[in-house]
């Protein structure tokens, strides 16, 4: 037998041509991967950990949860203001330690069980009371959002009263956060630690199925108390690789994707796609070591703020997916943000002057950079660009790069004796959280806080303590604005960017908008 029979050559060539022709014909046929109407397929960034709202911490998981469950309160669409949800109304006692909620009538869980005050009490006791029979369905990593809660009392079926150990202004916005979503007690009792895979809530969608590493499917809840959902079902697909997520979107395999890499955005500039953007309560900043080294001098810290070209970082490195930050409070907290605050302009000459005044010309700095991490955007290119800007004004910056978890292990215990500056990003649900945990003297690392640069200003401390116990939003706003002006001038950080979350939807998706909370509300979305 001939191995490569020459006489068969023409026949083989003809067969090959036939295959290619039929393949080309296939290519012109209706495209593969058309998703069905009425079913919205969302490309997520990871497999969810659990669908138990008390047990999870990731925005990726929250995107599913907020469509299955509701809390007592929610964020008003388009803002970060608190609005009624399962509670229609509430009163706060004079001293700010008692919150009494009136619950919505006629709400049922997905299995038909009526929603009442007992369910609310069960949810918070499970998280907070270590002797609760279902406390072992945890751990509940974010339970400390409610650590001020002393007791929860079901006054009558439609009234529930929270008693706090001390006044705590962020309480309501913490209730609106996904950690405060209400689950069906009987479902926890039945499933125990596996509740996260068999979730039951009151939301506009109910749980249908979870195929591990493939998809989480939720379906329209026909008995929803409000306007029904606009789609029959939503499918959340985990696609951890960003390039593959982009390819799926381009190929029509998914209808919506979140967290589009900045460099990929240009591929979606056509009529087939809509790109949505929304600035959120996010701040990307550099922690400066105000305890030892050159940044102990305020003028050097200000010089760093002048020397770094934030417009270029946001425009070139981040391709416009963020805005330049002015101070410690993101503008997404509209009511608490001081609009009069201007970002430090890019002014290398002014930076050199300040450095000369402080005698810090040619100082050597150690700069901690992370390789990735939640909310860190593009930390390595950003770190390199910052290094170049600081070199240009005569500072000698040495970068040390760490993987995210290792990085946190280095930065959170404080920079003293190790580094002069470090990248950091925070996303919070209340204007109190970040400055309270990262700017007060009592939040230095040795006291269990995140003030890794050891900034200390008694005035700022007093303003933050006062804002935390005030129950009047107008008064709190005034205090936060004063705080922002002082912190802006003291420059304990280099204020760099506020991230704009983005999403791409196909032209078949309507009524979609992103929220400042970064939660993905899909009730009103329509898929044609």
């Amino acid at each position, binding site marked *: 037998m001939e191995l490569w029979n020459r006489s068969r050559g023409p026949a083989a060539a003809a067969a090959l041509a036939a295959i290619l022709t039929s393949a080309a014909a296939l*290519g012109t046929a209706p495209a593969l*991967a058309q998703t069905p109407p009425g079913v919205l397929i969302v490309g997520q960034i990871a497999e969810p950990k659990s669908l138990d709202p008390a047990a999870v911490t990731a925005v990726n998981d929250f995107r599913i949860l907020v469509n299955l469950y509701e809390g007592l309160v929610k964020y008003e669409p388009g803002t970060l203001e608190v609005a009624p949800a399962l509670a229609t109304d509430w009163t706060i006692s004079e001293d700010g330690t008692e919150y009494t909620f009136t619950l919505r009538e006629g709400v049922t869980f997905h299995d038909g069980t009526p929603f009442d005050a007992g369910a609310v009490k069960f949810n918070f006791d499970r998280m907070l009371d270590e002797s609760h029979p279902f406390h072992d369905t945890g751990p509940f990593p974010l339970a400390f959002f409610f650590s001020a809660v002393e007791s929860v009392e079901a006054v009558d079926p439609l009234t529930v009263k929270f008693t706090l150990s001390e006044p705590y202004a962020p309480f309501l916005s913490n209730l609106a956060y996904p950690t405060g979503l209400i689950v069906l007690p009987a479902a926890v009792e039945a499933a125990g630690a596996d509740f996260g895979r068999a979730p039951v809530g009151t939301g506009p969608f109910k749980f249908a199925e979870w195929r591990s590493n493939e998809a989480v499917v939720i379906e329209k809840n026909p008995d929803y108390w409000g306007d029904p959902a606009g789609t029959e079902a939503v499918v959340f697909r985990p696609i951890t690789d960003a390039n593959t997520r982009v390819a799926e979107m381009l*190929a029509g395999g998914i209808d919506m994707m979140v967290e589009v890499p900045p460099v990929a955005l240009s591929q979606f500039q056509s009529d087939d796609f809509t790109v949505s953007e929304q600035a959120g309560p996010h701040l990307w900043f550099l922690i400066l070591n105000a305890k030892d080294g050159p940044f102990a001098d305020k003028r050097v810290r200000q010089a760093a703020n002048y020397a770094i070209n934030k417009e270029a970082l946001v425009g070139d490195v981040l391709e416009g997916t963020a805005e330049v930050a002015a101070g410690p409070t993101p503008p997404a907290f509209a009511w608490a943000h001081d609009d009069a605050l201007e970002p430090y302009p890019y002014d290398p000459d002014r930076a050199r002057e300040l450095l000369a005044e402080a005698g810090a010309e040619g100082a050597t700095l150690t700069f901690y950079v992370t390789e990735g991490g939640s909310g860190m955007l593009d930390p390595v290119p950003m770190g390199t660009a910052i290094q170049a800007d600081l070199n240009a004004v005569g500072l000698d910056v040495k970068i040390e790069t760490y993987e995210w978890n290792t990085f946190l292990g280095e930065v959170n215990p404080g920079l003293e004796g190790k580094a002069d500056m470090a990248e950091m990003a925070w996303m919070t649900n209340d204007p109190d959280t970040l400055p309270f945990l990262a700017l007060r003297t009592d939040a230095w*690392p040795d006291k269990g806080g995140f003030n890794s640069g050891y900034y200390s200003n008694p005035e700022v401390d007093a303003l933050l303590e006062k804002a935390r116990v005030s129950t009047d939003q107008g008064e709190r706003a005034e205090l936060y604005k004063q705080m922002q002006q002082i912190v802006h001038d003291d420059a304990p950080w280099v204020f760099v960017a506020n991230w704009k979350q983005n999403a791409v939807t196909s032209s078949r998706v309507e009524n979609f908008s992103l929220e400042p909370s970064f939660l993905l509300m899909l009730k009103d979305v329509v898929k044609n």
Partner: protein
Amino acid sequence: MAGYILKRLLSAIPVILGITVIVFLIMAMIPGDPATAILGSYATPENVEKLNRDLGLDKPLAQRYVIWLGNMLTGDFGRSFSLNRPVLDEILDRFSATLILAGTAFVLCSLIGILAGAISAARQYSLADKAITFVVLIGISVPSFFLGMMMILLFAVKLRWLPVSGMYAIYGGGDLPDLLAHLAMPALALAAVATGVVARLSRSAMLEVLRQDYIRTARAKGVPEGRVVYGHALRAAMVSIIPVLGIQAGFVLSGAVYIEMVFQWPGVGRMLVDAILKRDILLVQGGVVFVSACYVLFNIAVDVAQGLLDPRIKT
């Protein structure tokens, strides 16, 4: 032969025990702990300590190892922090997906590789040999993940013949044609490099054998050329090809990590990468031990197969 197999199986036990020690120590030593990974921005020392206690990570190292090993012997691999489900369920789910992908790639690279090598050797320096050598060198040189991305761009995004990623269609589907459509690109991309290696080695093994006296004798007796090449020479060459296949099986398994990331194949490689990033200690440990045990068993199977082919290697 049974005695030989038993001896090899017993000798695998210390190897696997050693692997458990190494992977346990590595996971204990790498910086960053699961509590910090879970809490993210909210990882205050106080919160981290409480969560570590809840997760049972506050016990001494040796105690944790003994508990883990003891539980594993009873089939309890523990519960994954990041996925909140039993580790063994997750591994078994994922491993079947990896077996489908790596198994297909392995069969592809063995068949195509050996055939290409045999053709090359039988017609040394012919046009077919040169063409095969050229294609094989490209296969060896192009990184599989790059090849995978290019295939996605061409066949899924531009031409829309094949789905981009995943194992089954998200809606509907779930049957064999659906699986094959999803399997085609990742299996080919994964097989490409291994095929090249197998083809090169098969070619040299075949050339070696074809120079032997008994091949000349067979030809002189008038045995048809096809029988000489495939009946006599290939069988003899298989003795040196099979160990290479054993190594390639390991390569295909480890190469599956990249391919699973690119094509979002729900396999064990992607699971391990995610688990490492999330410091999901029990999932990493369980996954590594499971995969290593499979690799060890596979190598024993290869040795046994070689023994069957070549009576000189045995017992």
